[in-house]
C-alpha cells in the first residue's frame, strides 16, 4: 500500500514537474519536446487510473499528433522568422551601401 502510494506520489510529481518544465523552458523547441514527453507520462497516469482507452487516445492524439502539429508549426515559424531577419539585414545592408555611395559622391 505504501509502496503504491509512493509510486503515485512520484508519478504525480514527475508529471507536474514535466508540465512546468514544458511551459517555462526558455527554448520553444525544448518546450514542445517536453510537452510530448508530458503527454506520454499523462497516458501512463491514466493507465494507472484504469482508463486505457483514454490513455491510448491521449498517446496518439493528445501527445503524438499535437506534438507533431506543434513541431511542424514551430519549424515553419522559425523559417519565416529567419526569412524576415534575412530580409531586414539585406535591407539594412542596402541602405548602408547606398549611404556609402552617397558619401563617396559627396567627397
Amino acid at each position, binding site marked *: 500500500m505504501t509502496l503504491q502510494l509512493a509510486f503515485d506520489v512520484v508519478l504525480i510529481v514527475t508529471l507536474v514537474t514535466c*508540465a512546468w518544465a514544458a511551459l517555462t523552458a526558455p527554448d520553444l523547441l525544448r518546450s514542445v519536446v517536453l510537452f510530448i514527453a508530458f503527454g506520454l507520462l499523462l497516458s501512463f497516469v491514466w493507465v494507472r487510473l484504469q482508463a486505457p482507452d*483514454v490513455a491510448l487516445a491521449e498517446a496518439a492524439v493528445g501527445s503524438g499528433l499535437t506534438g507533431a502539429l506543434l513541431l511542424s508549426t514551430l519549424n515553419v515559424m522559425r523559417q*519565416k522568422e529567419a526569412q524576415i531577419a534575412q530580409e531586414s539585414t539585406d535591407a539594412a545592408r542596402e541602405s548602408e551601401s547606398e549611404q556609402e555611395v552617397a558619401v563617396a559622391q559627396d567627397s
Partner: protein
Amino acid sequence: MIGSAVLYALGGVALFGMGLYALLAYPNLLRKILGMNVMGTGAFTILIAAAYRGSDAAPDPVPHALVITGIVVSVCATGLALSLAVRIQAVTGAAYLTPDEEDAP
C-alpha cells in the same frame, strides 16, 4: 474520491493552474497554445480521477468517454490556433499579438 485518485485529481488541479498561468503570462502564441493544452489535460485528469473506483472495481466509463471527446476537441482547437498563429506571423511578422494598427477597416 477514492484513495490515491484524490492525489491525481490534485495533480490535475495543479496542471490547470499552471496552464492558466502560462496562458496569461507569456505573449508568445505557441506558448499560450501549450498553456491551453496543459489546462485542458488538467481538467481531463480531474475527470479521470473522479471515474476511478478502486483497483478492483470497474471504473466509471462516462468520464472516460467525455475525456476522449475533450481530447479530440482540444487537438482541433490546437490545429486551428496554430494555423491562425502561422497566418498572423506571415502577415505581421510577429509570433505574438502586436497592438492594432489604426487603419480603415
